[in-house]
């Protein structure tokens, strides 16, 4: 029915002289997303617009779903593009469009016309008024409501004439690759994939670090994290996943430090190692799924103590969100079902019955002195033996 989509973007339009950089990114991101859809597509920029045109057969629903995953798109409007062959032909096309696009016609509408090409023989108001009349004639069950119409029929007179009335919400955000790269600390839980998705939505490319602790955690737990990364990659593009074997560090901390401080000290070393890989790969920040007060290691005191080991900024997009709101996003991006698979992750293996909730940095650092003998060597070994997995979205 439609052979083209009009892609609308908002924030990019205000980026001044850099605007073309954002637009070009968006165009190339749309192209790479549409590679996952069967069909042949042309994506072109024209006067501050992006059009996706299709050639031959394509799957409409799949195409829309894929476009809805592209960061930076605010609205996707399936559009009819026609050459200007006079007003009569335009009226016919509009009637035909309404007939096909709406099963029942008892809606209120208005026609909104814009002329980018001012040499059209009628004014915008005239076109709207005349088309409105023709629509009422063709579909007597429709009614005009210029203030709160249920359907707005957009007519844009450009080099080609654009007719569209269906507007599908897009992801919003900024085009991927327009910001920089950040390192996500990815566990198997609900929060971290959501955090990665949210930061990536602002145009940020992702890398990820996962800590596993065989034999305390299983291959399935690792597979689960790879699967989660795949889901996030459907939005963020390819993710370089660093899988760190954390067992020996964890056992050493267990041996040498007070057990109620185990988790907090462990997290400090995780941040340190993640930051190591972040710096190595030119990431500009770390991303975590922490949220104030969610668990003992995410009280404000705990966050301050873990944060202290990093020099890169740590982005925590969920910091002020409630669990249910996080779950809602996880469901939307389809990570929830995977996240709740019951495989143990390394944070919970040796967790104390009553871990410290208000750690004091001085005490923690004092406990860490018990580790001086071997910890550097263990951290180095963990870094040296880290496995890298490139994860990309699953092709359906």
């Amino acid at each position, binding site marked *: 029915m439609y052979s083209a989509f009009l892609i609308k973007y908002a924030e990019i339009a205000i980026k001044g002289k850099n605007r073309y950089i954002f637009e070009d990114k968006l165009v190339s991101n749309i192209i790479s997303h549409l590679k996952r859809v069967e069909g042949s597509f042309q994506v072109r920029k024209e006067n501050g617009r992006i059009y996706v045109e299709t050639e031959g057969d394509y799957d409409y629903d799949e195409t829309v779903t894929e476009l809805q995953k592209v960061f930076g798109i605010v609205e996707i409007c399936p559009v009819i593009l026609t050459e200007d062959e006079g007003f009569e032909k335009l009226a016919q096309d509009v009637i035909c469009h309404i007939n096909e696009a709406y099963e029942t016609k008892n809606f209120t509408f208005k026609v909104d016309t814009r002329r980018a090409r001012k040499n059209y023989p009628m004014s915008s108001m005239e076109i709207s008024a005349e088309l409105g009349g023709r629509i009422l004639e063709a579909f007597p069950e429709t009614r005009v409501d210029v203030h709160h119409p249920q359907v707005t029929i957009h007519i844009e007179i450009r080099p080609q004439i654009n007719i569209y009335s269906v507007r599908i919400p897009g992801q919003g955000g900024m085009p991927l690759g327009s910001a920089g790269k950040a390192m996500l600390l990815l566990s198997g839980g609900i929060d971290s994939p959501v955090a990665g998705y949210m930061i990536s939505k602002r145009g940020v490319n992702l890398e990820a670090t996962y800590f596993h602790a065989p*034999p*305390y*955690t299983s291959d399935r737990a690792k597979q689960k994290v790879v699967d989660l990364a795949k889901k996030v990659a459907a939005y963020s593009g390819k993710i370089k996943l660093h899988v760190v074997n954390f067992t020996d560090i964890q*056992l050493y901390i267990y041996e040498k430090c007070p057990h109620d401080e185990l988790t907090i000290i462990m997290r400090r070393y995780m941040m340190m190692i993640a930051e190591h890989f972040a710096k190595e790969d030119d990431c500009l920040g770390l991303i975590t799924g922490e949220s104030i007060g969610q668990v003992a290691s995410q009280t404000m005191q705990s966050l301050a103590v873990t944060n202290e080991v990093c020099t890169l900024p740590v982005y925590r997009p969920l910091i002020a969100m409630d669990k249910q709101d996080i779950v809602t996003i996880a469901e939307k991006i389809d990570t929830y079902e995977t996240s709740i698979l*019951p495989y143990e992750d390394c944070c919970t293996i*040796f*967790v104390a*019955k009553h871990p410290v909730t208000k750690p004091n940095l001085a005490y923690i650092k004092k406990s860490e002195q018990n580790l001086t003998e071997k910890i550097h060597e263990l951290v180095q070994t963990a870094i040296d033996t880290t496995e890298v997995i490139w994860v990309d979205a699953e092709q359906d």
Partner: protein
Amino acid sequence: MEAYLDNSATTKCNPKATELMVELLTKDYGNPSSLHRKGVAAENYVNDAKKKIAKTLKVQEKEIYFTSGGTESNNLAIIGYAQANCRAGKHVITSSIEHASVANPFGWLADHGYEVTYLPVNEFGEISVEDLRNAIRPDTILVSLMQVNNEIGAIEPIGEAGKVIKAVNPNTAFHVDAIQSYGKLLISPKKMNVDLLSVSGHKIHGPKGSGFLYIKDKTKIKPILFGGGQQKGMRSGTENVPAIAGLGVAAEEIYTDFEKKQEHLYELRGHFIEEVLKIDGVSVNGRQDKNAAPHIVSVSVEGVRAEVMLHTLEDRQIYVSAGSACSSNKPSVSRTLKAIGLKENLLDATVRFSFSVETTMEEVDYALSVMKEVIPKLQKYTRY
């Protein structure tokens, strides 16, 4: 070295069975219901498998019905029998340590107006025949018991139970879940007064997706699948000829030189138990002598969670189950271990070793040596 000691979860398929199955998938691939010669050929394979299986149980060929495996056999036996005989009564009996594919059909019956009595077990996982005798009533239509428990290898007193059931209420049918016992014990449904008996193919080196239900002649049962009326309407659906033929081969094979095979398993088990008990903090659940199944050993290791034990062994190419494999993707406390009164701290510190006729003493020794090495290390890091 690799040691696959998870044979109660599944076994490697017998090469002869595999070979035959490939042939039936690529050459003699007919549908037994077809009237032409390819159909007849396929039907002959099914009949041949039936004959082989009937022989292992000393029953009639027409009493064997092929299914997709143990779960379907149990469901057909329990649901099918209860529904066909609900006018005779709505009381049914089973034990408290049955596999989920028996326990859940009984749960379904309980939800649908039947009254279920669950028999307790002793510390070894065995029911008492006296309890059974007392539980049987005039309206008891069905008793279902497993012959060998899948988690600890307990052998239930099936022969005595059969006698008691028929003595107290001759109209009560007796179903036996023989999924862990077929191929490990000699089974005679006629002598044991068994009316229904479930078997799974892949536990005896047959293919997955194969199994059968022995239904004693003249036993009234309602099908649970409806369709083209294959297998006398008891189990509609085109017969899975390759799997059935593979199962036939595996069944014949496992009962050839049976005494020798069983002796081999008991030898492995006896040795394993003797040695593993020498490790500090290790205990064996259930009977340690020959009054338990020859191929299953349930081992509790104090201070080492089953999952950790399992992954540590896995790292050395030793494959075992945590508790019972069938529930391993849903970590929940085992009903069997609870029922035998295992100490709270050992409930999630229990792993199952299970042998097959192909398991060697070297593999067992290898597993033992690794356990002797790793258990003391793992016990150092206990969790809260």
